[in-house]
């Protein structure tokens, strides 16, 4: 379940939908991670580019990995502009047992940060500025250099 939305996420609606989707799946632990735009560095918000084909294959690999632990992962992310105090990202793990969910949400969020083909821009003074300082080169980068 990978969901992309234009602009900010309706976090409570997505949470409610996911909770209900798995309400009879017999998962004992459900851990969402919600990412919200902080007011810092005088930005007006953030903006995101998403490359869907590779994001989907990254996500599908995670779904397979989660399945090995009888867990599932879900994810929603924004495309385009998201303003201060709005949310752009929800990741979630459902699993029968809490240890699996607690460890997997950490791994999933960190791998997402390092690998998911999404680019972040600061919205500042009417401009869209690539957040190069906060970005991470995908593992294996530099092949063509």
């Amino acid at each position, binding site marked *: 379940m990978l969901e992309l939305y234009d602009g900010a996420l309706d976090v409570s609606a997505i949470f409610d939908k996911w909770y209900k989707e798995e309400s009879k799946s017999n998962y004992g632990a459900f851990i969402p991670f919600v990412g919200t735009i902080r007011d810092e560095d005088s930005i007006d918000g953030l903006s995101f*580019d998403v*490359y869907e084909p590779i994001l989907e294959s990254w996500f599908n690999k995670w779904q397979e990995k989660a399945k090995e632990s009888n867990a599932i992962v879900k994810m929603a992310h924004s495309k385009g502009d998201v303003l201060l105090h709005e949310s752009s*990202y929800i990741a979630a793990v459902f699993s029968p047992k809490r240890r699996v969910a607690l460890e997997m949400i950490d791994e999933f969020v960190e791998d997402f940060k390092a690998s998911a083909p999404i680019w*972040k821009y600061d919205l500042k003074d009417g401009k869209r500025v690539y957040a190069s300082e906060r*970005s991470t080169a995908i593992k*294996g980068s530099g*092949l*063509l250099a």
Partner: protein
Amino acid sequence: MIKVEFLGPISKPTMELEASNLKDISEILKQDDEVKEWLETCAVAVNDTLVSSLDVKLQNGDKVSLLPPVCGG
């Protein structure tokens, strides 16, 4: 022809190049001053699959994508 596309913040339109493998692509892109500076930090996908070797053979119609550093969330 091989299509080379530049994702995210690399403001460069898609190129069409003659190449039989990634080594050829690398040689051509190194000549491009706008693209050159990105090569060190970009991951590479062929037909939307990330690759880790320059030896990948390319066929007519293949798509090579350059993915600069990411920051989702």
